[in-house]
């Protein structure tokens, strides 16, 4: 399925300076795998060394958080928009 993945401003430098990328994918996991396959430099900012999505990286299909759907197995359909939104965390 052709889906659109929105690239957050801080990561556009690692995705050919594009605001969004059109990909073929059937699930969110496939979309992120395809995205980081095309743009390898994105991978370390989205995934930790053990291959898991970083704890502060949130993924939405349209307006739904995939944590409340089927996580990386969440299906995507033609026309869906996948958004990557960080939580901002830190401290002393």
């Amino acid at each position: 399925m052709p889906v659109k993945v929105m690239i957050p401003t801080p990561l556009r430098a690692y995705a050919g300076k594009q605001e969004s990328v059109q990909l073929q994918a059937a699930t969110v996991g496939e979309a992120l795998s395809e995205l980081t396959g095309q743009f390898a430099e994105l991978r370390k900012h989205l995934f930790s060394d053990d291959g898991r999505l970083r704890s502060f990286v949130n993924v939405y299909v349209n307006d739904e958080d995939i944590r409340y759907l089927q996580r990386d197995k969440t299906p995507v359909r033609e026309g869906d928009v996948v958004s990557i939104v960080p939580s901002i965390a830190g401290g002393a």
Partner: protein
Amino acid sequence: MSGPVLKIESQLLQRIHAHGVETYPHECCGALLGRDADSGREVTDLLPLANRRNDSPRNRFEVTPEDVQLAEKTARENHVDLIGWYHSHPDAPARPSEFDREHAWPWYSYIIVSVQQRQPRDTTSWRLRDDRAGYDSEQIETVRRSATAD
């Protein structure tokens, strides 16, 4: 070669300090709105936000994805960019911690203000390196709003 520079009006810097004092001994946090151009990066407004880390607000802060989306929307509506974040370190140095590094992205400017005994002290700004190994210090250049001649 000179490093990155972040311009900010002194009045906005004072608002960050005031926010850090207001929430002391808890960490404050907020969004930096402004412009990132070839000529430089400048903060033109702030969006103070609630620290959502209710379990450990003295040494942690969190901005939820919903608040991040609110900051992005606010930036869009004001025809500026979301260029970074600020937070305070109560009774701790204005240096990014390991926890800060693990939860950061490159490109954003991260302002940290140290608040010691309710008094704002050092203020620093940082950008995460591309390889995530550490931060580069970003020079804060305070600018004064020029008076409008009427």
